[in-house]
């Protein structure tokens, strides 16, 4: 391509590009430091291990929300299937965790046998331990690589990437767009979760993979410490993910994908390979989602197919919408805010409201509130929580008297147009 002629006008050093990146990284750093100092693992205990895990998981959700924002907020593809990639990442790492932990248990118990066990006996015993609960005793072929951490780690990246590549190539090639693409991605994640629900999938069906929080060989390390390690890893992944996403949306590439979002046909007529750009973003975000999943599930401890049911991916879109599309920190705020508030309400911590005639129990009414708040946000605050930032920075959209910049009015493009 003619990069040289279209050289960027601004310096390409990404940190200077936007102050929001620096603010975000600083906030994340402070959060990590505070949580570390107050955590159980450091002996202070002001923040319980379970809350550290919750925070660590929330950071992973923020990461996948960034992926969602890239693909939807910046590229205009409303994917309702990104949790499928998230789940695949979890399954990939889960298989190794489960295999390795069981292998250690089995080897320990077989160590006392008169004859030293043959490799076949060890493998059989592991299979019985893992698949006994679903009525099988043999390793399905899909577990062929489960013994190797590097290979399964590679799978965390490669499998979601490949799936996204194939699916995206098929879908974009046949020009499936807009709502149809959303329904198609939803069908993809539904098909995957239905497939995994079957025992024949070889991944323990509905039961899923469990016991993932116990790292093999690290039985002596208490969960308080482990949870902190994972928290750090999640924070690091989030920081790197943020930088990567920011780099992608900056510069010319970012302009092109935003252009695709606003008017795909126009960008195509300008000579860009729209499908190529979309495919790249779709695949990249799938890989990010896979990594986020691989970090999330060892903290959750269990993964099962219900995790990747279509509703999870819709929630993902809702987080991004609530946080504010088209700005990376918006996605982070949305995912963090909604999932933490949700934990608070369903955990029974929220006090009941006594109205005299009726007592509102938040466990019963929280979902209603959540649902209505989606409606209110879409109707009255299309910029989401991130829109508040604009109030502070007093950045106003140029008054265009309501004229459209593109076909999809919801995409919040006026503001960005003013920035470019």
């Amino acid at each position, binding site marked *: 391509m003619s990069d040289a002629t279209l050289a960027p006008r601004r310096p390409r050093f990404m940190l200077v590009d936007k102050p929001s990146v620096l603010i975000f990284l600083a906030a994340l750093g402070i959060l990590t430091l505070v949580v570390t100092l107050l955590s159980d693992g450091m002996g202070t205990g002001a923040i319980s291990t379970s809350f550290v895990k919750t925070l660590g998981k929330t950071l992973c959700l923020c990461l996948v929300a960034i992926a969602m924002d890239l693909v939807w907020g910046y590229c205009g593809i409303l994917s309702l299937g990104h949790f499928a990639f998230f789940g695949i990442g979890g399954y990939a790492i889960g298989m190794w965790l489960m295999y390795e932990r069981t292998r250690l248990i089995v080897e320990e118990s077989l160590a006392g046998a008169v004859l030293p066990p*043959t490799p076949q006996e060890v493998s059989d015993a592991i299979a019985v331990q893992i698949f006994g609960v679903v009525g099988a005793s043999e390793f399905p072929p899909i577990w062929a690589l489960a013994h190797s951490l590097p290979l399964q780690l590679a799978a965390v990246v490669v499998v979601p990437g490949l799936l996204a590549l194939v699916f995206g190539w098929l879908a974009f090639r046949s020009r*499936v767009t807009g709502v149809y693409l959303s329904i*198609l991605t939803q*069908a993809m994640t539904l*098909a995957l979760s239905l497939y995994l629900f079957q025992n024949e999938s070889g991944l323990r069906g509905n039961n899923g993979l469990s016991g993932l929080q116990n790292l093999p060989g690290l039985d002596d390390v208490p969960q308080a410490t482990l949870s902190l390690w994972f928290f750090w890893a999640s924070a690091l992944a989030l920081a790197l993910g943020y930088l990567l996403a920011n780099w992608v949306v900056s510069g010319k590439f970012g302009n092109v994908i935003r252009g695709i979002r606003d008017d795909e046909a126009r960008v195509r007529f300008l000579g860009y390979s729209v499908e190529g750009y979309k495919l790249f973003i779709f695949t990249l975000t799938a890989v990010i989602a896979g990594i986020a999943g691989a970090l999330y599930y060892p903290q959750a401890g269990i993964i099962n197919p219900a995790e990747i049911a279509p509703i999870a991916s819709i929630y993902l879109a809702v987080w991004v919408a609530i946080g504010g599309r088209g700005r990376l920190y918006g996605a982070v705020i949305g995912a963090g805010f909604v999932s933490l508030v949700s934990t608070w309400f369903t955990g029974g911590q929220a006090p009941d409201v006594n109205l005299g005639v009726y007592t509102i129990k938040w466990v019963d009414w929280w979902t*209603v509130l959540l649902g209505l708040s*989606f409606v209110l946000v*879409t*109707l009255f605050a299309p910029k989401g929580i991130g829109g508040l930032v604009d109030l502070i920075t007093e950045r106003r959209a140029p008054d265009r008297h309501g004229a459209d910049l593109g076909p999809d009015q919801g995409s919040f493009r006026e503001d960005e147009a003013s920035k470019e």
Partner: protein
Amino acid sequence: MPRQTYWEAAVTFGLKTLLVAVTMLFANLASAQDLSPLQTLLQEHREILEKSSRRTIGPAIDAIADSGLDAAPELLSRWQNKELWQREEDGLFFYTEDAGKDAEGAAQLRLIDIGDGSETGLAPKSAMDQLKPNSGIRGMIGAALVRFQLSSPDAAERIEALDAISRDPEASHLAALSRAIDNEPDAAIKARKERQHRLLQIRFAEDTATRIDAIESFAGDLGVDVRAALNPLVVTRRAVAETLPEDPDIAATLTPGSAQLTRFEAYDMLVKEGLAPPLIDPAAQKAALEANIDGGAVAGIPLEELDSSAARDRAYAVLVTQGAVEPAATLAQIDAILGAHVFYERYTAAEPRVVASALATLVSIDRSVAINQVIDLVLDALSLGSIYFLAAIGLAITFGVMGVINMAHGEFIMMGAYTGYVVQLFIPDYTLSIIVALPLAFAVTFAAGVAMERLVVRWLYHRPLETLLATFGISIALQQLAKNIFGTQARPLTSPDWLGGALVINDVVSISYIRIAIFVLALLFLGLFLLVMNRTRLGLEVRAVTQNPRMAASMGINPDRINMLTFGLGSGIAGIAGVAIGLYAKVTSELGQDYIVQSFMTVVVGGVGNIWGTLLGAGLIGFLQKGIEWFNPSNTLAAQTYMILFIILFIQFRPKGIIALKGRAAEA
């Protein structure tokens, strides 16, 4: 039924005279209590009656049935209906009736003598034990009652007897049934009797020619009962010998290593027959090695080196040369042994002529069964398709025509179902309640749809993706609201009796009336949709507004009003679909969830904006799912998975669906 029951029955028969004598003696002794002969008979079998187990109850039933007492048939049938009770203090048996409560409020029973049917006073319920014959015993009682019922003046009893015969056919039924055919007044029952008679002949007739005639008379018959009578005649047993016997009852020879008989199975048969030495499997090998440990080593190989199967084989081979263990058979030996024997299947259940005729009849039956199974599959697929169509038709309007992604569509279906449930709370008559529920469900969801359109959807007409999110929010809010109001339990929505049951065309092809009703309802809605869209002013205006709202507005049409009405119509139809779906499945707050994704796919596959497309889409999905299920009947989930995969691929190649709109309408 196990053989020992017959045997025990035979013993009872043999000792009948002795028993009668004992009975008389007992009756005399107990004359102070004035026991009826029937009561005496029951007292004699008191122990097995109290135990109430199918395996031991036989003698008691036979004794009562053979007693020749007039009251015996009634006793059997009331016992079968769980009306026989036993008084705890003296173990006497009575029929009982509910007699309300006594002064202290304890339940009482009126006791009725089993001998003469006279009332013998009241007893507290707590002092009585009910005899509870399980369904196995009830079947035996039914079989014993057959001879009394076959010629009963009551047609219902005769049918009951025929049911009992078909459940537990016995040799004795054949003679009884032969006697009861000629005097049968009712033509339908007579036909059943004759058919049943021929079935009994297949099983029990002594004369081979009669059996063969009976068998051949059923050629092409679809009844499960016919197959149930014929299949036992053609069962085979596997056997092995050095040379194939020249008997006429050999069904087939089997080759080891074929699909019918694996080499392993074949060898296993030989081992069981004692014709070959057992194979040494890894576990047996390990046990043998462990038994021969000598100073930390087996056959000179140190224990810690025996961690592979190769090393274990080596050690075992050494042990064999030392003579410590049996040699394991080598592949060549196994081949030789298998080759020296012939494996075959032999008919065991009947003589060859009967088998041949049964086989021929079964071939003719199988052919017509196969054809009918295909018909049944088609019916099932049509039914499933019509359910999907019914669920999707509202969506075909809101999504297909207006382009609004309504994720709360499933919840409108749910609201319709709950409306049906609430109506049934107030109107206990099921027929009337359905008649009320259908329009009411339409009204409720129409109102909900209009409200949603006014408050939410109209602000988002240009932002379809955001409509998706907003309506999703409404969807989860409505679901939780339903939980808060109706609780999390499934609620009953019962269909009226005339919708219960199934249309049975033959034993293979049948379809339940409720599914037919759904099919008819789906067709009605298709007609209604076409009528409204093509023949009414509303339809014209809807089409105008969806194609070009500004132009429509300038022609004097109020687009707001039209959008509102269209959306209400689509939602209202979803409500009616909800009543129908609730009738056939369940009413829970998650009802809508089960249909939403499928509904969208139906519309998308069919082609947005065209009702015929939706119809084809629903049909395609229904047939596809049933077709895949047919290939893999033990896993329904697989069918759904592959169906969705197919749809994904289908949309790649026909992104606009089966029926793609062309021209200007497509751009709207």
